[in-house]
């Protein structure tokens, strides 16, 4: 089957199988699991993953063809996005065969949901300064600590957990990665309301949680290199999604605004022209990156440039729209009130704008890195988190 046929077949399958009817929120997880099983049966789950572990063993070309066919649909796969985009690929790259055998197929079939447990209250941009401890105890490890910003943790069966196993060495050298059972006694998941009032992520507490050593991913104290693998996959999956979402539901889009504003006012017109210019500039950049990827030019750190621009556009757009619309924009049931309230999220999640600028500066422009004061200091002597 050539690529066009593959894309057409995928399109047909999606048209018949993506659920379009309304269903109660409470059923969402069951529906998502059901859909993933069907997706796997049809051969569209884990397209590039190895056959041996439940994937289809195909190439990036088929994966892209499927993504193109799927662009017209909203797939009910959100709860699996962390597993499919980050933790699954990490297990595939760095896990043992026993771990691949145990975890990958159930993930691809939608039987198990995953979350990623890296960030902590004291370790955000500087995630390697995390403090959650893992202490060996026979053939087990005992975990104590707290994670934060954990998407889908309240639904998750498994988590990829980064812990500190040695405080006497510099921070990057004393970390170890585990797979943790989210149903284990001592794991407490607490929904964390964000500034929009919704609980889109969680705090997760570990109180003497035990993990068998066979669930360690990578060597003891080599967790940082495993985490780098995960973060690379995270950035790729974010930048692959950048520009995919349409503007059709955005209350701050040019199309939405021109319906409610007096465009005879030259000041309004010029503001809308500016919005058009910035939106088109980013959309065309995203399309160029996509075309380059197709031509075999790997975007690498330039994906961070696209993510940064999307964050800035999101903030600018919601801010502009509320200013143009005026007093009614701040009524809580207004879509614009929600838009301005959610806008900062894009500039913080998946790396802050400042971190993105560092990445563009260091890796795209090749600028000299900042001197590091923490490279050789044993973790126990390092200032971390918030200290007076």
């Amino acid at each position, binding site marked *: 089957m050539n690529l066009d046929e593959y894309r057409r077949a995928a399109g047909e399958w999606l048209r018949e199988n993506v659920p379009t009817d309304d269903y109660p929120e409470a059923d969402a997880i069951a529906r998502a699991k059901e859909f993933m099983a069907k997706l796997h049966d049809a051969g569209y789950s884990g397209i590039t993953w190895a056959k041996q572990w439940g994937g289809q063993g195909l190439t990036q070309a088929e994966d892209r063809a499927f993504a193109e066919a799927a662009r017209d649909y909203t797939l009910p796969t959100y709860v699996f996005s962390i597993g499919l985009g980050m933790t699954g690929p990490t297990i595939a790259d760095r896990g043992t065969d026993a771990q691949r055998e145990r975890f990958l197929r159930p993930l691809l079939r939608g039987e198990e949901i995953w979350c990623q447990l890296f960030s902590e209250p004291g370790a955000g941009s500087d995630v390697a300064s995390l403090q959650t401890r893992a202490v060996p105890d026979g053939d087990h490890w005992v975990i104590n600590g707290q994670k934060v910003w954990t998407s889908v943790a309240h639904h998750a069966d498994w988590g990829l957990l980064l812990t500190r196993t040695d405080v006497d060495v510099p921070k990057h050298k004393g970390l170890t990665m585990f797979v943790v059972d989210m149903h284990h006694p001592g794991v407490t998941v607490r929904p964390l309301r964000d500034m929009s009032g919704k609980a889109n992520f969680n705090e997760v507490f570990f109180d003497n949680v035990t993990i068998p050593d066979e669930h360690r991913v990578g060597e003891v104290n080599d967790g940082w290199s495993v985490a780098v693998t995960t973060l690379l996959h995270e950035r790729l999956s974010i930048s692959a999604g950048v520009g995919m979402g349409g503007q059709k539901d955005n209350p701050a889009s040019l199309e939405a605004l021109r319906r409610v504003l007096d465009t005879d006012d030259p000041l309004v017109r010029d503001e809308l*022209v500016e919005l058009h210019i910035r939106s088109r500039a980013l959309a065309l950049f995203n399309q160029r990156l996509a075309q380059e990827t197709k031509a075999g030019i790997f975007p690498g750190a330039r994906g961070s440039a696209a993510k940064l*621009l999307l964050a800035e556009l999101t903030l600018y757009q919601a801010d502009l729209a509320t200013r143009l619309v005026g007093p009614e924009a701040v009524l809580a049931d207004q879509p614009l009130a929600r838009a301005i309230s959610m806008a900062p999220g894009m500039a913080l999640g998946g790396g802050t704008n400042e971190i993105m600028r560092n990445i563009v500066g260091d890796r795209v422009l090749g600028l000299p890195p900042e001197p590091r004061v923490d490279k050789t200091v044993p973790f126990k002597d390092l200032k971390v988190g918030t200290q007076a």
Partner: protein
Amino acid sequence: MKLVLSQEQQELRAAVRDFLRTASPLPKARDGYDPQVYARLNGELGLSGLVVPEEYGGAGAGMSELAVALEETGAALLPGPFLATAFTALALSLVPDKELQTGIAEGRITATLDDTELTHDGGTASGTLTQVLSGADADVLVAPARGDGSTVMVAVELAGPGVTRTALETLDVTRGQATIVLDGAPARVLGPAPETGIFDRLCVALAAEQLGVMRAALDAIVAYAKIRVAFGRYIGSYQGVKHKLADMHLKLEQAESIVRYAAWAADESPGELPEAAALAQAYVGRACFEVARDHLLLHGGIGYTWEHDAHLFYKRAKADEVLLGPPRIHRARLAQLLEL
């Protein structure tokens, strides 16, 4: 839509870049127009005939290829009538003229284009053109002229009788302008003036030059930030500098995407061209000046000196930004095209 350069386009870029690196290095940009460089540019690379049809001795290439060439001449701040001749060649693609197009393709004729309307009586033209790009250097002027109730395009030999040229001192020392007064100068009618299309093509061509100017400016300051030390560190390691450079890079990425798109539209999708052209000038013109400005500022005091090249980019960027009119006209056109 095609936003990535083909193999051939990449080869063209490499060839022009290599040629200009030796034939027209930056220090030479201050000396102004060098006809010998042009002769080689046209002879060895055939650049002047890039968009001239093959039947008139050109390469029959499109805006996408011209954009690649203009990006490089922009990056080199190439002095002289290259952009003006390219503008004219683009106009002639809508008002074909064998004599002029052949001359341009062979590198015998440099030309300039102006939109000031002249008057003509069939054989001669008159009028005052206050600011003509490369007006003191070009051999031929192409402009609209009114007579007998219709508007036509005419060509005037600038070295001929009835022509007074006064070179103007301009902000951009690398490329000049002139006032041209025509008083019954012999003028050849090329054909009816097209109602639309010329201006859009000029917008795209200029944006390609601006893309080159901003790329070269960014490259220069990034290179400097890697070797200049202050307080014991390379200045590029400070976030105050690094983050600004990152933002300049973002502008460059978006500008390149817009230029590729607009050039593709000119070649393949005429319906999209007006909006793409207005977008190109509205975004790239501003972005180019901002990058050139910040590149100068980040150099520190040395960037403010006459001796340093930073001001050459800064001034070319400003001259380019207003070359086709005050930038608000591009924004106003966008508003109109979007039916706002």
